[in-house]
């Protein structure tokens, strides 16, 4: 939870204690290195260079590609679901298959795509580079982390091929239904899912420890926490959340595995299944829900916080303006992270838990909206009197603001217990979380890829294709999910294979469904444009300059681009300022990189360092 920041950090650049040893007149002074240079691992075979690589950048790319590959499967599943919903007459899917696809879609998107992409992918790529380190603290463990993730993905995919197919329990995996007859994949499928999750958690823990220690203990000289780019803050806090939230998932998974395989009754009360009395007795299904959401709510912030961080950087770089209220932004990230452990049961207002919890959780849930709101304000104030370059990353960031705002505000509906009662488990919820999680962070992912692609490949992505991709994705996905809220008002429940005739559901609602599906298919197709762009530009794209966006943060200031093993050549960089000195009055250029010493920009009237 990173409560270390209970106490206000000093953001000023006066180097306490150590500064006294250096002459005060020396304005370029940076504290002595506290640690010897990192002992790097040097690969010496094809296997250790390209497969079991221990270079964080390389692991990051491996992570990202694996995650995106899995994500594409999730995307295809969503098409199949949508087609079924809109055109039930086609008879494309059986109910069982539909539910299996919903489950796999949800789980893949949340865990195997977004969590892995943001933390494993962007975390590995950016943390060492942005902190000015040579590599992660424990490269070997880092490598294991990736391969554990690969195994987790393989187990997940394997569940498509076992008898009974993958689990169809919904991504929330609620027992008793997850492991009893009547739910597709209640034998092998769910077991493989649980095993895959356990592997994922184990693998993630190895990676996560790396990210945390690297950020805390391994920064370049001069890089105080309060000078780190917000990207790092977001990823770092999300990692802390993950390390503290995944345990609940792990425990829930283990207990459910035992319930299913050994016949224990942790979550299983005495019950009848398909007319047959089962031997379970006395367990509590709600306990699982508490465990799941104690993990699940922080999890949604795990995918949101890195997006918050990255988008802050994208906005600032491409608006040529410092991020407004940096300190507030950091506190907000940390505060949201900490609070996210106290709101979990807002997913359970109508779960039959102790009804008095509603008061507590409604209050904490709405409190968490305050720091989130501040972030939104600071993003838009950053645009005020800026010098906005409408590059692709900027476009995606702007779209993020709108979609996140929309989704966040519908979160306020759901967070307010009373309002949640009619809306819970309807398409309103589906619309809420796709807006806030399925689009907003995904848009940031795209923006980030357009932004950092040159850093990885040394080439730029094609602008025109990018523009097509942007407009179709943004407008299209808004068109998918905005109307979906209104289906929720009508009362259409989620996880319905088919709505069919109902006295209160007008036929027009079904027409709306068809509209949504068509929009989804178009948006999906636009992703192919993007993939094409990524693949072809790696070879054929325009060569990028060294720092194409004129950004301040360290990753653009390595001796080589793309950076080589060890990142920094002979010496790690020294940092003199925060990452947001754009358009400083008195400076010659409209940006001052973090590693430019004050003596080189004498005239610049820098306020925050």
């Amino acid at each position, binding site marked *: 939870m990173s409560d270390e920041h209970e106490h206000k950090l000093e953001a000023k650049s006066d180097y306490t204690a150590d500064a006294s040893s250096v002459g005060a007149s020396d304005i370029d002074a940076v504290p002595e290195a506290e640690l010897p240079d990192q002992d790097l691992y040097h690969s010496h075979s094809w296997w250790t260079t390209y497969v079991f690589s221990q270079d964080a950048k390389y692991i990051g790319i491996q992570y990202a590609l694996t995650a995106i590959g899995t994500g594409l499967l999730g995307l295809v599943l969503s098409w199949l679901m949508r087609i079924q919903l809109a055109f039930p007459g086609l008879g494309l899917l059986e109910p069982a298959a539909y*539910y299996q696809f919903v489950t796999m879609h949800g789980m893949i998107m949340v865990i195997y795509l977004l969590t892995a992409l943001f933390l494993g992918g962007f975390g590995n790529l950016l943390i060492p580079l942005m902190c000015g380190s040579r590599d992660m603290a424990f490269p070997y463990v880092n490598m294991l982390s990736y391969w554990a993730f690969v195994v987790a993905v393989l187990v997940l995919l394997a569940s498509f091929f076992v008898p009974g197919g993958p689990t169809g329990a919904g991504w929330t995996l609620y027992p008793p239904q997850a492991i009893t007859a009547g739910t597709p994949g209640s034998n092998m499928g769910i077991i493989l899912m649980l095993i895959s999750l356990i592997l994922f958690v184990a693998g993630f823990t190895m990676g996560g420890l790396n990210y945390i220690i690297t950020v805390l203990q391994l920064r370049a000289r001069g890089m105080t926490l309060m000078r780190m780019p917000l990207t790092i803050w977001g990823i770092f806090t999300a990692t802390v959340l993950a390390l503290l939230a995944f345990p609940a998932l792990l425990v829930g998974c283990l207990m459910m595995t035992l319930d299913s395989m050994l016949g224990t009754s942790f979550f299983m009360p005495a019950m009848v299944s398909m007319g047959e009395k089962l031997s379970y007795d006395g367990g509590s299904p709600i306990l699982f829900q508490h465990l799941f959401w104690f993990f699940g709510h922080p999890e949604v912030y795990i995918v949101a916080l890195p997006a918050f961080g990255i988008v802050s950087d994208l906005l600032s770089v491409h608006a*040529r303006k410092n991020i407004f209220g940096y300190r507030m932004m950091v506190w907000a990230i940390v505060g949201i992270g900490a609070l996210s452990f106290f709101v979990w049961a807002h997913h359970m207002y109508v779960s039959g838990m102790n009804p008095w919890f509603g008061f507590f959780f409604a209050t904490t849930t709405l409190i968490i909206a305050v720091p989130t709101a501040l972030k939104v304000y600071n993003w*838009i104030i950053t645009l005020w009197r800026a010098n906005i370059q409408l590059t692709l990353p900027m476009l995606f960031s*702007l779209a993020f603001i*709108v979609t996140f705002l929309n989704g966040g505000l519908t979160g*306020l509906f759901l967070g307010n217990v009373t309002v949640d009662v*009619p809306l819970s488990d309807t398409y309103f919820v589906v619309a809420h979380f796709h807006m806030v999680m399925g689009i907003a962070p995904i848009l940031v992912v795209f923006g980030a890829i357009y932004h950092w692609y040159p850093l990885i490949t040394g080439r730029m992505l094609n602008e025109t294709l990018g523009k097509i991709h942007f407009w179709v994705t943004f407008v299209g996905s808004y068109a998918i999910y905005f109307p979906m809220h209104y289906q929720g008002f009508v009362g259409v429940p989620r996880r*319905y294979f088919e709505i069919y005739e109902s006295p209160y559901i007008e036929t027009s609602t079904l027409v709306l469904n068809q509209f949504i599906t068509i929009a989804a298919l178009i948006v999906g197709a636009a992703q192919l444009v993007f993939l094409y762009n990524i693949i072809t530009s790696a070879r054929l794209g325009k060569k990028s300059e060294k720092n194409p966006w004129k950004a301040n943060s360290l990753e653009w200031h390595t001796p080589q681009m793309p950076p080589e093993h060890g990142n920094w050549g002979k010496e790690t960089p020294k940092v003199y300022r925060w990452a947001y000195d754009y358009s400083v009055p008195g400076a010659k250029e409209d940006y001052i990189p973090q590693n430019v010493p004050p003596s080189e920009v004498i005239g610049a009237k820098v306020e925050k360092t």
Partner: protein
Amino acid sequence: MPVTVAVAFLLITVGSVVFHFWSPWWWTEVASNWGGMDDTIILTFWITGFVFVVICLFVSYCVWKFAYRKDRIAEYKPEDNKLEKRLTWITTLGVAALLAPGLVVWNNYVTVPENAYKVEVFAYQWGWKYRLPGDDGVLGKTDIRYISDENPFGLILEDPNGKDDRLVDGDELHLLLDRSVKFELRTIDVLHNFYVPQFRGKMDMVPGIITYYWITPTKTGDYEVLCAEYCGSGHYAMRGRVIVDKEQDYKKWEAKQITFEKMLVQNKKNKNLQLAKSNK
């Protein structure tokens, strides 16, 4: 380019508002005492809608007004404590304005009136049954282990309160207009959720415990029951009916429902008949 983008964002904002007011999709008219929920939603809509529009307009204005020009330099202003404080307070107030009425309604929702009529809603994969308390006004206790062909509801035979319970072995429930009713929600297998969109109320049914909520039907009519918690492949087809009647119709329907005692007797007889048949 900046103009196009600004206009696009403007259109999206305006489009959202237009869609909100003019699209045909909206909630069904409320048929219970929970109009308060609708009111809270409306209040939330006004507050959040206002914020949404303001922020979106602000963004498109900035995109248009502060578009990149080589000769211009952005403002350099890292922090503005006063502004940030003000924004924090405004947001806190806005949030409190949403929360307060919400909590009041929730308090009503979880506090069942003393005189509420109790009905058991009985869910299974994938259908509904109901149980009325009978003349003593008390529902008998139940136990999964007692469930059998003769005792489909699993009433505990030793419990005298259960004898006169009326069992509704079908998915249609009648309710008396304007009488508060407390649904005692029971499931014998997995999670379900008893949801009638027009009543607004909702609560999961959890095996191993009894959950509840209460409503007062305020409009006669024929309503569809949906299962609103995923319960396996048949989830989407798990429908039922609730009919809100005036006194007379209700009495007629109630009288037709068989009591537990009668059912036991009948089942015994059936069994004898069957035995006689198979002996032949």
